[in-house]
């Protein structure tokens, strides 16, 4: 496929796979952030980032299949994310009150 | 709803009510548990009254659907094999409760509730006629016993409880697998229907399948029996368990294994059972002699009795796998005998423990001077245990050995060694505990039996004499059932007669 041909095709719009690729990239960035950051709030934001990446896939597939279900899943994910954010942040507050740190490396009560 | 259902239900109801009684009402819980178990016992006696000798199949049957899919029935019923074992359970539970009266002060409510739950499970195991139901009851029994050992036991109770639990689970998992396999073949868990399908040839197993299924069942039961070399959980569990726990464990729970062998292994897999009999019998005989020898050198009374159980249960397994009428009858009778006499031994050891707070033989001596009646009861029990004629064990041992002699005389020769050794270890222990000079410590801790203790011991002693002197009250219905089992296994008498001749030849 030569470039001109490709450009011609792009007139029709953007391939869905590009959206999916973007979603994958965002997701990977989220994973990387989750793994390298220590601040619990930032880690939390990386999770949100991953959720958003997944949402994007849902929407892209919804468009692809011309179905509304994907939107609804996204909707539910948002609800869950909102609930999670509320509870999660409340937990962070409590943890911070008890241990005066936001560094997840120090929050390792699960060990043993 | 018939009397059998009532016997199964009463302990369960008692268990639930006991849980609702406030913790503070300690004595009421004891009375309640005793009353309920006695009631159960009385109701269970109506089973004996109503049992019709000579009737075909089981009696007091209830068969209702319990779970729709897969179809599992609440199918219970009794026959000559299970009747006495159920009576044994209901007979011993009140005694177990009564003997724990003062010994258990800590968490009395749960303790007595667990005893009732145990009774529920035991009666259920012996009554269940649906393989799945059987398995459920089998596991129900495990739970209260685990806690009885783990909470109210002695120093190493956790180790013992876990060992007991894991050993038994290891076996029963295999049994579950076998039960499920049978379900895939027969399309039902109903034991009567499965047996029927076997006999009409609807289920045909390959030789390998039959052997594997037999082994799966056998292993579960052999661990419970326990058969050498799967017995090492028993001494630990006995030593650590509270007295009532040891009593129920030795007297009834071990019988679950031997009951299973007779109930399931022989009728369902007759060929595999017969093929595997030689090595099983050898293990049983090793168990008889080995258990006796190890019992002889135990410094701890409960361990000694535990190893003696290994020896005695060896006789039961031996009897079962002789495939003779006498051997099988003797084995079943020996189950009951062992329940009574070893139960009594644990009971009396428990009395000693309550007085002196030690299970070591060496911390006793001269008890006969301080507590003559206790010594006499112990002596009678000891004699029953070593198989003195006119006491119960003799009848069972005689029949088992007679059966073994008919099957293969060499077996009888080696198994009889156990009879000699049993006298060695029991009398030696008796001498060291009861005879000799009375030491100061023993003297001050050895009151004579209390009324409650008499009430516990006398029924057992009475049963020893009754079962030893007039076995005809018990054996005929057992015999009838065993004849059916032998017949189902198509083990015709010519085969046995040949085996008998062979045995005679071997002896020459």
């Amino acid at each position, binding site marked *: 496929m030569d470039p001109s041909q490709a450009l011609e095709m792009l007139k029709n719009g953007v391939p869905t796979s590009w959206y999916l690729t973007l979603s994958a990239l965002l997701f990977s960035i989220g994973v990387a952030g989750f793994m390298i950051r220590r601040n619990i709030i930032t880690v939390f934001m990386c999770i949100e980032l991953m959720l958003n990446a997944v*949402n994007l896939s849902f929407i892209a597939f919804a468009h692809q299949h011309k179905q509304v279900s994907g939107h609804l899943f996204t909707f539910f994910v948002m609800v869950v994310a909102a609930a999670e954010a509320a*509870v999660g*942040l409340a937990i962070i507050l409590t943890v911070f009150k008890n241990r005066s740190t936001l560094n997840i490396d120090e929050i390792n009560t699960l060990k043993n | 709803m018939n009397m059998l259902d009532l016997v199964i239900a009463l302990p369960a109801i008692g268990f639930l009510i006991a849980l609702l009684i406030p913790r503070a009402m300690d004595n009421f819980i004891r009375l309640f548990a005793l009353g309920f178990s006695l009631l159960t016992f009385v109701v269970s006696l109506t089973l004996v009254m109503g049992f019709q000798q000579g009737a075909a199949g089981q009696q007091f049957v209830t068969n209702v659907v319990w779970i729709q899919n897969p179809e599992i029935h609440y199918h219970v019923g009794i026959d000559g094999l299970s009747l006495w074992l159920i009576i044994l359970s209901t007979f011993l539970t009140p005694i177990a409760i009564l003997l724990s009266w003062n010994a258990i002060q800590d968490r009395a409510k749960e303790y007595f509730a667990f005893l009732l739950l145990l009774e529920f499970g035991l009666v259920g195991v012996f009554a269940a006629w649906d393989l799945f139901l059987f398995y459920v009851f089998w596991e129900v029994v495990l739970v209260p016993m685990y806690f009885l050992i783990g909470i109210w036991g002695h120093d190493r109770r956790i180790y013992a409880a876990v060992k007991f639990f894991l050993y038994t689970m290891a076996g029963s998992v295999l049994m579950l697998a076998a039960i499920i396999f049978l379900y895939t073949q027969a399309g039902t868990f109903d034991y009567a229907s499965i047996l029927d399908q076997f006999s009409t040839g609807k289920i045909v197993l390959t030789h390998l399948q039959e052997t594997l299924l037999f082994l799966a069942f056998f292993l579960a039961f052999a661990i419970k029996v326990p058969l050498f070399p799967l017995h090492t959980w028993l001494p630990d569990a006995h030593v650590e368990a509270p007295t009532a726990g040891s009593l129920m464990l030795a007297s009834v729970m071990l019988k679950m294994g031997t009951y299973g062998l007779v109930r399931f292994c022989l009728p369902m897999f007759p060929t595999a059972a017969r093929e595997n009999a030689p090595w099983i019998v050898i293990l049983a005989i090793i168990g008889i002699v080995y258990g006796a020898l190890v019992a002889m050198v135990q410094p701890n009374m409960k361990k000694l009795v535990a190893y003696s159980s290994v020896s005695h249960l060896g006789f039961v397994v031996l009897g079962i796998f002789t495939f003779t009428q006498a051997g099988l009858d003797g084995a079943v009778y020996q189950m009951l005998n062992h329940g009574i006499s070893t139960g009594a031994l644990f009971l009396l050891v428990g009395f000693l423990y309550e007085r002196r707070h030690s299970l070591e033989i060496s911390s006793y001596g001269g008890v006969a001077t301080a507590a003559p009646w206790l010594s006499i009861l112990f002596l009678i029990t000891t004699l029953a245990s070593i198989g003195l004629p006119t006491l119960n064990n003799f009848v069972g041992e005689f029949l088992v050995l007679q059966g073994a002699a008919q099957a293969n005389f060499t077996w009888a020769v080696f198994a009889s060694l156990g009879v000699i050794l049993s006298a060695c270890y029991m009398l030696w222990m008796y001498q060291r505990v009861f005879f000799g000079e009375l030491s100061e410590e023993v003297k001050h801790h050895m009151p004579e039996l209390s009324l409650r203790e008499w009430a516990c011991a006398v029924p057992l002693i009475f049963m020893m004499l009754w079962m030893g002197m007039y076995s005809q009250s018990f054996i005929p219905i057992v015999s009838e059932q065993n004849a059916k089992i032998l017949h189902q296994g198509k083990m015709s008498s010519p085969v046995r007669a040949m085996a008998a001749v062979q045995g005679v030849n071997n002896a020459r």
Partner: protein
Amino acid sequence: MDLFFFSLFAFIALICAVNVVLQKHPISSALSLVGVMGSLAVLYLLLGAEFVAMAQVIVYAGAVMVLFIFVIMLLNAGIEEHRGRSWIAKLLGFPAFVALLGLLCWFVQRFFPNTGFVKFGDFTGGGAQEIGYALFTEYLLPFEVTSVLILIAIIGAIVLARKELD
């Protein structure tokens, strides 16, 4: 047109996402995350998901991120203290990350080679009406369940937050 908008907002989203991860201060991360969400909302619009795009802006970029910023402020979270990472992480971290990215892209391309094209206006089923219809017919039960979930979350948050009052 599509290509332009896609490229622009995809680029913004990626930059912001990288920023979320790389910024030392949580506040910066949070603001970058708002950027990601905003640009995603535009992409949703491109995909014909009007309702979701609005919800994204209102719920995510608005409510959730405000919550984050509240917490950051409340805790006065500063720059995270930096400690040395293990040499394995240093050595393998970045290559592994690139490998992961590559793997995912390769996957997308491999398994979805001939997907269709996204053209604004091709799909109009994402309006509030359609969503609402689906929500109250086919997805009624999950919808109700989410409401319970939200309720639980509220109560949970209150309970957790109450604790610090004692």
